């Protein structure tokens, strides 16, 4: 059994030099957009080890062959991706994303919308799972409403394919794991006690969020969603093939307002999926920007 090494993630360098890992890494990147840089190969190796022991393969090369076999490929890739993106989500999981929104994106949006006298902001959590992300965004916006968003109205759209997730998200009941990065002050302000171990989101948060079941592949529903300022779509596209990914991105592009942003999961890339979005680097994170009509790359933003 090789499963034990996954505990520490500390393989010997010799294992990591196996070229099969690079090939597995590239296969995952091509199919899902999830990228494991050279220095994180030990993580990939430990995930592979778990899958390898499950399918009884003893070497990375054998596992690569197994992955490349048409009969196993789709199922095994999905199981592998589950391992890679494992872990339930929690609130305030990506603070650098929120910093970028607070310090860079919102000032841009506030400036351009103020000119039009249109003080309304709309965010979309596409693939909201059990609701941690939309509730984070709701707290974030409420905190900003005392500052740069004073006098603004906002709403958050939270969608998922899974009915059970949506039901859990609507209930808004969370334990310590989900709340581990939420400060006491925010817990007190935006949650009420549910039982001795869990808190429940206050109505003030819930009233900002509209929960809905949406299949990102459903053209009729996707076309209907308009006027979004920022879309969050974390580790959802990885389960789509290239053709469906491109279709979802086309929808996202038209769902967004000009100048709007799309955020993907950490280590997820849109390369060769959609080149109309512009990759933008923020401190600690990257986002994808929809340029306004007539935007010229030579102009300074």
């Amino acid at each position: 059994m090789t499963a034990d090494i996954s505990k520490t993630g500390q393989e010997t360098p010799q294992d990591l030099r196996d070229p099969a890992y690079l090939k597995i890494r590239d296969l995952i990147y091509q199919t899902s957009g999830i990228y494991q840089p050279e220095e994180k190969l030990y993580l990939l190796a430990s995930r592979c080890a778990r899958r390898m022991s499950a399918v009884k393969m003893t070497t990375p090369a054998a596992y690569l062959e197994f992955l490349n076999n048409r009969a196993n490929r789709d199922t095994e890739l999905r199981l592998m991706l589950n391992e890679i993106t494992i872990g339930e989500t929690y609130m305030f999981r990506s603070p650098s994303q929120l910093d970028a929104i607070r310090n860079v994106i919102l000032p841009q949006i506030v400036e351009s919308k103020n000119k039009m006298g249109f003080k309304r902001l709309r965010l979309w959590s596409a693939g909201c799972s059990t609701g941690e992300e939309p509730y984070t965004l709701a707290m974030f916006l409420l905190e900003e409403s005392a500052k740069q968003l004073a006098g603004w109205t906002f709403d958050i759209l939270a969608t998922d394919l899974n009915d059970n997730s949506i039901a859990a998200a609507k209930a808004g009941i969370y334990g310590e794991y989900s709340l581990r990065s939420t400060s006491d002050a925010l817990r007190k302000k935006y949650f009420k006690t549910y039982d001795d171990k869990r808190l429940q989101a206050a109505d003030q948060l819930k009233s900002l969020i509209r929960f809905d079941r949406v299949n990102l592949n459903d053209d009729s529903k996707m076309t209907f969603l308009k006027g979004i300022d920022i879309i969050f779509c974390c580790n959802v596209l990885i389960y789509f093939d290239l053709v469906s990914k491109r279709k979802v991105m086309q929808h996202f592009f038209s769902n967004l307002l000009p100048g709007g942003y799309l955020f993907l999961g950490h280590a997820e890339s849109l390369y060769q999926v959609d080149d109309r979005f512009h990759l933008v680097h923020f401190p600690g994170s990257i986002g994808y920007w929809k340029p306004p009509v007539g935007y010229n790359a030579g102009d300074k933003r």
Partner: protein
Amino acid sequence: MKLQKLEEIRPKIKALQSMPTVPAIVQPLSAMLQLPSDRVDMDRVVKLVSYDGTIAAQCLRMANSPLFGRRNTETVKSAVLALGLKRVQAILLSCCLNQIVPQDKWALEPTTFWRHSLGCALVSNRLANLIQYPDPEKAYLAGLLHDLGILVNTIVCTDEYRECIRAAASNHIPLLQSEEQHLGFTHCQTGKILAAQWNFSPEVIEVIEYHHNIASAPAGRPLVYLVHLSDLLCRLRDLGYGYYEAMGVNLGEDQAWAMLVETCPALAKVDMARLTMDIDGAMEEIVTIVDAVFKPQHAPAE
């Protein structure tokens, strides 16, 4: 805050030449760094490293860091071999420069400064390899020294510079912009003066002078573009000046990127997100190395 003119500050920079704190080995070192690797005298480098206990300790720490395989390097000579001559010379130089700033004068935390400088060196080196720039070691050196002017400003106008950095940090603006507002001159200008005085190579001087203003650089200077991008990448990750800079940068539309693409057309097809993630992946390691070299250690190396 009164503005100081570059001309007023120039004599003070001149005086740095004769400062007693400038280690005597800076000059021979920077001359040696310009030689091709095969002409560098290994024994001489080992001697220079051994000359200063702190520097020797820092080389050993770096040689024993994960990037170099975490081997148990015990002698200075084996550390030099493990790191490579050029890398050792670069460490030597940065350690010497570290010593020209008196302890109580630092405006930035010394570790913050060297994290950024060494980080930029390592990212430049990596980027150089990725884009097949012919001299990745030169990119390393240029990255290491690009902010020399920050040391100059720290020494020649300590109080004003502290204020300048404080203002930059509290407004989340680039340091350069704050320098223009508070000092009337920039670390690019002062760094260039000292670098010329110390006979740094012309290419490194260009990097120091133009890394924030690539439009003014003479045409066709890939090293300037490379360090400009590495500097940005470091500041966009955890290797900036120790404060949050509110910026969103489209690297693909950066002028430096466009100019690098001109010298190396294959770059146009580079997967920018993947390149970023590669560098992101390296950041953690870079931070560890920088801390290993420059942070005061409480426990002696094994």
